[in-house]
């Protein structure tokens, strides 16, 4: 295929500066913009059609900012509503792949900046943008049997269609919030990191994001559909053996098969007895602090010593390698929001220390549990002695004996 611009992952992240800007779509200067992926039936789609409604590029002024709606309609037997957020995030990736095009954000914050170099190369129509999207979607996923793209620059029409988009986003957010491990019969396994950690298998479930933080259950589902023989694969959940600790027969089976026989049991909701293995790419480490019989968490970017006197780097050395280490969990940061996060051990109610950056990032979740002034940060305490004192002063519920462990 011959396009005016080259395409490839090497163009991701190419910023377009003010003096180089040709045309901008969406972004902070534009009131209404959105991108949306919709599921349709095959009859409703004309395969690989690209429709432009409103002004096209050749009618736009250099330096101008214009409203945009990008609508990707897909149909396919293997597609369902749960796949849509994954497909929709591809708009960002694919647009970024285009040399001279820069894409940021998603949903109703979408923002595109096109470089003047695109004009020099001969771009005259948004249709080409749509065609590139079609090309990349169909190249990557056989599960998309039909696809049609609509690019709208008419502000009235965009405004009119926005409620549909808004409702779709809300429904998906609700789904993520309400979908739990007990609601599905399939988890997903990931062995991408096995060349570094030969015995490590990540069990990814609705309540448990992958350790690297990059793959959630929806991502896993899509990946397993696109490449079923690949490193991300479906795990039939099997019998629920222990709802508190999170032991599932299917997960145990996968451990047995994929960890070179090292492990055959795993608790998804606990840091003790049979904790989940840690590879090397985890975003953060949950660590047990014996002096207070509670947990701390530290993330990769944290430079200094944690409250127990070790740095992330040091702890990572002891935690990685695909081993189950009691009291140590290499984990994805989003786990903090998960209701099942070490629930067998007391969950967030047993968390006593974290870096300020993390506490701020998950403020809402921590406040909702009434724990905001109960968890110490690096500015509050420098070591375990100080921590004990501080927790006492702030009456941390775990130390007060007020937390009941689920049975």
């Amino acid at each position, binding site marked *: 295929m011959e396009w005016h611009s080259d395409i490839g992952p090497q163009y991701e992240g190419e910023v377009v500066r003010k003096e180089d800007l040709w045309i901008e779509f969406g972004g902070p200067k534009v009131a209404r913009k959105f991108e949306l992926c919709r599921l349709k039936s095959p009859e409703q789609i004309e395969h690989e059609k690209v429709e432009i409604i409103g002004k096209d590029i050749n009618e736009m002024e250099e330096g101008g900012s214009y409203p945009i709606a990008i609508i990707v309609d897909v149909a396919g037997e293997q597609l369902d509503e749960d796949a849509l957020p994954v497909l929709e995030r591809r708009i960002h990736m694919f647009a970024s792949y285009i040399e001279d095009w820069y894409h940021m954000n998603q949903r109703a914050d979408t923002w595109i900046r096109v470089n003047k170099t695109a004009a020099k190369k001969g771009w005259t129509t948004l249709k080409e943008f749509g065609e590139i999207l079609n090309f990349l979607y169909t190249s990557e996923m056989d599960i998309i049997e039909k696809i049609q793209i609509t690019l709208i620059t008419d502000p009235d029409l965009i405004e009119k269609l926005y409620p549909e988009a808004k409702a779709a986003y809300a429904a998906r957010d609700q789904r993520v919030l309400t979908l739990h491990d007990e609601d599905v019969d399939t988890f997903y396994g990931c062995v991408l990191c096995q060349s*570094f950690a030969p015995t490590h298998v990540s069990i990814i479930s609705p309540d448990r994001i992958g350790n690297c933080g990059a793959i959630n259950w929806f991502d896993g589902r899509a990946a397993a559909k696109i490449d079923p023989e690949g490193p991300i694969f479906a795990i039939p959940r099997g019998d629920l053996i222990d709802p508190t600790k999170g032991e599932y027969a299917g997960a145990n089976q996968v451990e047995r098969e994929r960890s070179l026989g090292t492990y055959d049991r795993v608790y998804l909701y606990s840091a003790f007895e049979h904790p989940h293995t840690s590879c090397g790419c985890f975003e953060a480490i949950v660590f047990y602090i014996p002096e207070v019989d509670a947990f701390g968490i530290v993330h990769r970017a944290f430079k200094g010593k944690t409250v127990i006197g070790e740095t992330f780097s040091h702890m990572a050395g002891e935690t990685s390698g695909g081993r189950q280490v009691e009291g140590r969990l290499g984990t994805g940061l989003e786990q903090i929001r998960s209701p099942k996060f070490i629930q067998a051990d007391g969950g967030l109610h047993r968390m006593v220390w974290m870096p300020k950056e993390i506490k701020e990032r998950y403020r809402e979740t921590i406040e909702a549990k009434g724990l905001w002034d109960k968890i110490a940060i690096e500015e509050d305490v420098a070591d375990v002695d100080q921590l004990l004192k501080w927790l006492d002063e702030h009456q941390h519920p775990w130390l007060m004996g007020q937390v009941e462990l689920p049975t």
Partner: protein
Amino acid sequence: MAEVVKELTRKEKEIRELIRAEIPWEPVGPTPMPEIADLRSWDMRLLKTYKPWYAPFCDLCCLCTYGKCDLSQGRRGACGLDIATQQARIILLACLMGCSAHAAHGGHILEHLIEKYGADKKIDMGTYIELEAPNIRTVTGLKPETLGDLKTVIEYVYKEITHLLDSTHFGQEGSYLDYESKALHASMLDHVGMEVADIAQIVGFNFPTSVADTPLVDMGWASVDESKPVILLVGHNPATSTTIIDYLRENDLYDKVEVAGICCTALETTRYSDRAKIVGPLSRQLFYVRTGIADVIVTDEQCIRTDMPIEADNVDSRVIATLDKAMYGLEDATDWDTEEIVKQMVEDKKHFAILNTKKAAEVAAKVALKIAPQRKKRWITEEEAIELAKKCTNCGICERVCPNLINIGDGITELAKGSFDLIKEQFNQCIGCGKCEQECPNKVPIFKIMQVAASKETWKIRAGRGPVMDTEIRNVGAPITLGTIPGVLAFVGCSNYPDIDDVADMVYEFARRKYIVTLTGCAAMAAGMKKFENGKTVYELFPPEFDAGGVLNVGSCVSNAHISGAAIKIANIFAALPLRANYEVMADYVFNRVGACGVAWGAMSQKAASIGTGFNRLGIPVLLGPHSSKYRRLYLSRKEEDDWTVMDARKREIVDSGEPSPEHLAYVCETKEKAMVMIPKLCIRKNDTPQGRSIKLNHYISLYKKYMGGGLPEDVHLFIRRDADIPLVYKKEVRAYLKEIDWQPKEPVGLPTLIGTYPTKVPLDAVIH
């Protein structure tokens, strides 16, 4: 894993004492302080696939008085040696020279520092580096804690050098494969020696460490403030350069005297003081000396003009030789009275050898201050250049003797007509040997004329930052696995390339493509001598972290140990494999599972040979420029014919992967364009995840299309195991091609290793741990 209990020999007991085996920071592996034959089976396995390719530089052997012996067409010399074995012997000699250069440099620095601080001075590489010495720990089994420990290590290297050199004597080794194994051994030891040298330097001179964001320093002859006295340092050994800066600082002279350097000394000096100037790489040495801008030239060791005093006489500069390796027949004034030396240098225009750094520093400063006001320093004008150029008759002798095959006569005659474009192009290709001027029958002063061709720009380069941090290594594990970092590159080596811009162009291209780009030595300097968008060099355009799209100046030539060290760190920190005295397992891991590639585009010296060969033993391929065919030996495979079987350590079965990854270990490319195409391919490894493989193939195919006229690489199907490996953007095109050739998918090898495919003492479990 079964415990093999055997009686330790006396020698083994001694080694275990030296490396403090009783301290259990890791269990001691099978080869602490290995000797010549200890890693031979690993070498033989590598050489089985990457067979030595010999391009004899000379048909004869002239090493003994039975010669000269004609070794062409299958003949053997008086000692029985054949042409292949003779080439391998010379390669071993080159690698020994390289290894000795770094070992002696390291040893000398150690003596200097132990004198100053004592043998108990602790090694501290900063907050973010706990694994302070990956090469030393892996090869010897010792965790060095003090300067004294480094001395133990360097003495082991010295010992090995003697044994290896022994085997080059008349009537020794008769197998070219065994000479290659010895060269690999010498070169592995070179990385150990380099690590000793750079750790000592970092610790003793407070060079930057555990920091990525080192200062941007000035580079280029135009950055030198000629209104001040100029001390020019040439060589590699910063013992003297740091002493000179200390002296200037202590005597409140640092504002008044300009300190500039050429070659690695320049890189070292800017790690000590970011106000020092880097004139340029080795290819600019003769050019700059002949301008006469330098008042005092201070030499130490390696890569220095051997006729420096004669050149200095021609331009009224003065020379101080500070190391015993290069004394030029000068009087040894080491024990003389300082003022007497200064007097004779100033008034009698003499040069001296002064082997005491403090005295040399003082003399250099005093002489420079005295003679600078009396010396005429200026660059010639364009009018003057045109007049001088008119002497050229374009006879062509200059082209005949030029190592880079440049027809300087064309450039000079055009300049004589007032056109400067060609000579400027040629200046970029000039490697600075001076043979053209030497042969010119009309005595055209070519180097002088080049002054108007030389750009008057200055460039920015980062000061050398030393080792890759443990934290950085940990950070890149996920992106490498998930395919956002397509590989780790190392641009290293000397300045004997077709064109100086080539290096900058390659660095720019691959940094943009999100490779991690490390650099050392003359290559680091060359890469910084071109400006891209907004007048910025690659050091200003790209971040200095060991991360996607990062461009790192690791340091001087001895800093190359940090690059091989980074590969070992990936195996040890990220994959948690023990490295202590465990070289074979580390090399096996790096070879099979770390997508790294060295590029020594302008390699010229013996040190470059040992550095490259040392990378090879560790399993890292090196791509070389066209001049490197004159090293006489490459390590090439024949992709369709060779043995690509590996052991799948997960399944514990031998698998024919059919995948030539990496395709070659030491490889020569004729052009920069083709090098761009080959580099992504050389980063492919058998354990790539589908995401990782597809990003690597994306760059291979993308660059192939750019330079080879479109289409797909002829061998792309060899690197596609399953459909998921195909890069997204080329999915449809590649699928159509694979269908045409009836390609069949094959299962990726989860844990590829060579262990189990050749006789070795290493058990299979050791690569899984």
